[in-house]
């Protein structure tokens, strides 16, 4: 059975801002036996459409979903597990943890030192620009969430300062194809977790600077700069009511540009080696990230310039309900390709769980098949699996 803390597609209904669309194009929205079949395969689903997509999948598959069943505890019992939920207890032999990697926004400790005159928001609380006071906004973090909110807030007339640390720059389309088409077609997204050199790093990779819009536009830092967004370095400290930013901003740009260049080079190589040149446009060199003449190292948080801070500093899972000793020092689940370090316990939908595409909707199918195979073997008594 499937325990759902709220309604089907709960986090898509309750934990997303209004304008958000999927980063993946519609044609990539596919689950076993269910796929997007609308008129716009290259478009990106709005949240309402995502909810509908997942609801339909639940119906089509006849998944035994128990809604409003918030799990408050999972602990070992006999030869299985005892699951306590708001709709009663379940005793089972095996459990798949599919609660995701983004249950809580991460807010750094320095938030405590921000003067109370400034409003602070996480992406879970943010819905649209009207929520915010008029005036300046400091958006912290330049991954997908940060760049999207920075653009939306800047367009609303609020001057945005964006604090930029390490980030993943990507164009929305490359050589006429969606960049995620390239990730898929060239096989990068199928790279397995046991073939990746630095898996820890791959699993911690920030989300790419992408947005799904009808225009299929790129939302990298050059696009934000053209809109008038100001950049500062990684937020390092607060002293005497002043935010202090790293002076290493330029290297953040360089790292992201080089990394993107290598990736696009991989795409070019793949198209050449696989005779796909005819399917794609001509190679497009991308301009380096423009370095601002001056990047401020300090911002006075008490002079009214900044009225709101939006923390786009990532998310982490919430395992408070997990009464099984399977977390590492950093609070992440210990697992080998979704097989958790405890018999009968499994995970799905975590970053690079078994492949680079593990956290994308269409990435779940291959992972699920392999994890469920292992689980079935376990239930059948084959513990070598």
């Amino acid at each position, binding site marked *: 059975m499937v325990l759902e803390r709220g309604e089907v597609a709960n986090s898509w209904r309750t934990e997303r801002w209004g304008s958000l669309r999927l980063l993946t194009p519609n044609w990539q929205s596919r689950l076993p036996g269910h796929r997007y079949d609308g008129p716009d395969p290259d478009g990106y689903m709005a949240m309402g459409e995502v909810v509908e997509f997942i609801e339909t999948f639940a119906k089509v598959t006849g998944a035994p979903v128990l809604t409003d069943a918030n799990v408050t505890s999972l602990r070992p019992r006999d030869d299985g597990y005892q699951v306590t939920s708001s709709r009663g207890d379940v005793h089972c032999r095996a459990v798949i943890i599919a609660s995701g990697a983004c249950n809580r926004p991460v807010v750094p400790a320095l938030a405590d030192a921000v003067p109370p005159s400034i409003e602070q928001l996480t992406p879970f609380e943010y819905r649209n620009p009207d929520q915010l006071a008029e005036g300046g906004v400091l958006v912290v973090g330049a991954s997908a969430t940060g760049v999207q909110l920075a653009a939306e807030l800047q367009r609303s007339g609020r001057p945005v300062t964006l604090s930029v640390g*390490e980030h993943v720059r990507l164009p929305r389309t490359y050589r006429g194809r969606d960049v995620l088409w390239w990730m898929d077609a060239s096989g990068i997204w199928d790279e397995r977790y046991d073939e990746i050199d630095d898996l820890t790093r791959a699993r911690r990779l920030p989300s790419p600077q992408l947005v799904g819009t009808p225009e299929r536009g790129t939302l990298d830092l050059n696009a934000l700069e053209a809109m008038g967004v100001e950049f500062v*370095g*990684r937020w*390092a*400290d607060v*002293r005497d009511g002043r935010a*202090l930013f*790293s*002076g*290493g901003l330029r*290297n953040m740009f*360089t*790292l992201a540009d*080089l990394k993107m*260049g*290598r990736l696009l080079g991989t795409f070019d190589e793949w198209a050449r080696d696989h005779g796909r040149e005819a399917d794609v446009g001509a190679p497009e060199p991308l301009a380096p990230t423009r370095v601002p003449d001056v990047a401020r190292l300090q911002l006075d948080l008490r002079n009214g310039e900044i009225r709101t801070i939006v923390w786009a500093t990532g998310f982490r899972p919430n395992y408070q309900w997990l009464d099984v000793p399977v977390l590492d020092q950093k609070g992440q689940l210990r697992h080998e390709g979704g097989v958790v370090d405890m018999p009968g316990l499994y995970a799905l939908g975590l970053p690079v769980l078994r492949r680079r595409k593990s956290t994308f909707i269409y990435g779940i199918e291959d992972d699920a098949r392999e994890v469920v195979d292992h689980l079935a073997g376990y239930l059948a008594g084959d513990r070598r699996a």
Partner: protein
Amino acid sequence: MSDMTTVTNGVNVQALLDARDVLKGAPEAAQFTWKAQSKWQNGVHSETRIQNFFGLGAEQSHKTEAVFDADHPEIFAAEDNGITPIEYLLVGLASCLTAGVASVAQNRGIQLRSVEATVEGNHDIRGILGVDSDVRNGFNDVKVTFTIDADASKQEIEALVAQSQKRSAVFDALTNPTSVTVEVA
């Protein structure tokens, strides 16, 4: 690029990778304290000696003691017995980034032939002289220019330099604020 094992930049990368693995499970051993002992000489001349440090859970020692004279040039009406303290920051930055370039190159199997860096720190001395309280005391900005000859493409060399900044202790110490406590014993 050639294989990591055939490249000889003189960096024992294997030892560093092994250390990384060991320290993953023993964070307390990774706590180091670097120490310097300074002594006023005369005027703005001081002498700083460095030999001992703490790390891997024990007192450690350099093979020999190093002695550094700091002073100011004659245009500062000083005797110029050594470089200025702020120039020591340039020494630290250049040597740290260069060490990083060599290590990353070794790890990536890139043979280096020469690595040279020019480091320039722009400094408005009205700050330290108290001419204008809006001028800061430290560098306004620092520029490092590497000239590298290696068996690698331009992009690979740029990536070496970017990665070396990403893992540099001195680059971090200069670009990010650090809490500093100064007391009288």
